[in-house]
């Protein structure tokens, strides 16, 4: 049992493909309790199942500033979504070099390459427990970074303008 607390932050709407339900698995609940792991979620306070456990902070819909504040404060960003067209929190967390824990999916690997801590989305509970067990004992986690090149808005707009015939 770890005495030091570990805060994870998962900013996302409460939608089925975001996979919040994984967190309610009995094995994970026990693991969180025994290891002082806390998880801040941006889902409504009334979300069924979550309000029964004190280690879930249910923040509801928060402003972007507040979201960035939590992102800076947490030990790592947790991202469980099965698919995303972009995955904005992954980019935001990378821009502040925050460690990221996420499934190995096509959208995460395109943005982040090898920089996050991946878990296996086919066996998420087992894989998450195993990953978190190793991470909480580390003195420092590796920061994440973007591997996809980013173009500035001026260049992007030039591309749009061509197709808009402006």
């Amino acid at each position, binding site marked *: 049992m770890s005495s030091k607390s570990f805060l994870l932050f998962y900013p996302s709407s409460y939608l089925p493909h975001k996979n919040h339900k994984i967190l309610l698995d009995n094995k994970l609940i026990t693991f969180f309790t025994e290891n002082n792991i806390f998880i801040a979620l941006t889902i409504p306070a009334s979300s069924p199942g979550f309000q029964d456990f004190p280690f879930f902070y249910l923040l509801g*819909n928060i402003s972007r500033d507040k979201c960035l504040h939590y992102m800076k404060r947490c030990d790592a960003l947790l991202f469980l979504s099965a*698919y995303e067209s*972009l995955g904005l929190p992954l980019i*935001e967390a990378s821009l502040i070099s925050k460690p990221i824990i996420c499934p190995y999916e096509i959208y995460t690997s395109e943005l982040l390459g090898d920089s996050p801590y991946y878990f296996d989305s086919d066996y998420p509970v087992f894989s998450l427990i195993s990953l978190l067990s190793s991470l909480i004992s580390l003195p420092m986690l590796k920061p994440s970074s973007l591997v*996809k090149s980013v*173009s500035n*808005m001026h260049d992007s707009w030039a591309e749009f303008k*061509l*197709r808009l015939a402006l």
Partner: protein
Amino acid sequence: MPSSNYHSFPILTIITVTLNDLKGFLLTADSIIPNLSLNIQWIIKDGGSAPEILSAIQSVARTYSQLYSFKDNSIYSGMNYALNHAKGKFVVFMNGGDTFSSANCLPSLCDLLANELDDTSIYIFPYIEVDCAGNKIYRRCNSSAHSIFQLWRMPTISQSQVFPKSIYSQLRFDESFVVSADHQFYWSAALKSNYNIKTLDFPLAIFQLGGVSSTNPLKSCVDVFSYLRKYSSVGIFSLYSIMLIRISASCIRYLIYMFKRTRIYSLIASLNHRSSLIVWALGVNGEGSSVIAHEWINYIAQNQMSTLFVFSNESTLSKKFDCNSTKFVNKNARISCLKLPSFCRHYTFHFLVKLLFPVNFFFKSVLVFDDFPFLLASNQVLYFQQLNLLIGKSFLWKLKQLVFLILVSSRPSVYCQTEHVLSSFKRRFPSLECFSFLHEIK
């Protein structure tokens, strides 16, 4: 006599054919000269312009290009003559008045061609058409145009076609077709040669309507009929069907062209006060998509004249900014916001507007952030952020996918932020023009 300064083994030869049109020639020259390099050879063929025009052309040509000036029989005779002097691996025609679409266009084209190991491909590109009122329309390549019943037109204009020079040793423009020898050449190359046709997705040329083919629709039809009879193995019934399609389309285009030259059209256009751009973000309500749309709206408000932003009240997006803020106060621009009531976000309303609203009557261009394009729109970019429209399995998503399938028939340019969405989109809609990049997020 040719002037000096041409290069022995360029990648690209640009041929400009001109006659008594100094203004048009200078426009073309301005789009070429800043990007001339050792990789580019520029040949100008003047068809016997008046002395004062010729001397002005010579002063430009002396420094930058090879100029040949003598009277010729037709535009295509001039093009054929210029081809005799082409040294580039590839050739593009950019005649007087036509221009490359942007400053980056020519360098991008050269980069693309420099990486081409063999010269067995014909490249075709979209283009921007400018009518006599100055309105620009983005025209995509008609990639299905290689079927027999599409022979009445080319997939793109000749200024947006790049042919390997080797093809000209086998084929030339048939000068007996005064108006449509470029059609004859394209189809002879596409149907008879062993060259691959590659469609690219950035616009190469800006094309000014009003040339010989726009003003001689019947002659153009007769040319098409004659070259199909001469060069293709199309049966007589198909030939007459193609001819009928061609005549109908040409007549409609000619009537539109003539109408746009009338005072009535000018009056309607002036009453209309068409804004340049409408940015449609009515359905944007998710946190991530709102952050992206918000950044874009702020950027566009600062950098684009005459824009209307549409979004809904009480949405996540509307909470993010204030239309009266300094970002939207630009004395030189006509920037406005339209906040519609939140019920307009409902899909039924949303879809009806997208199906029925003739957006181009009021706005020249449309940028859509809420995933569903307008059916009746050209110059449209769809900022695609909803992966569920490609992979959603529920009944509701299947229904939305059906509506999307109908709306997307307007063939917008589709922008995706990531490669995996882009490849999913291309798999689902292979004929649509899609592109991607991840822009900065502050």
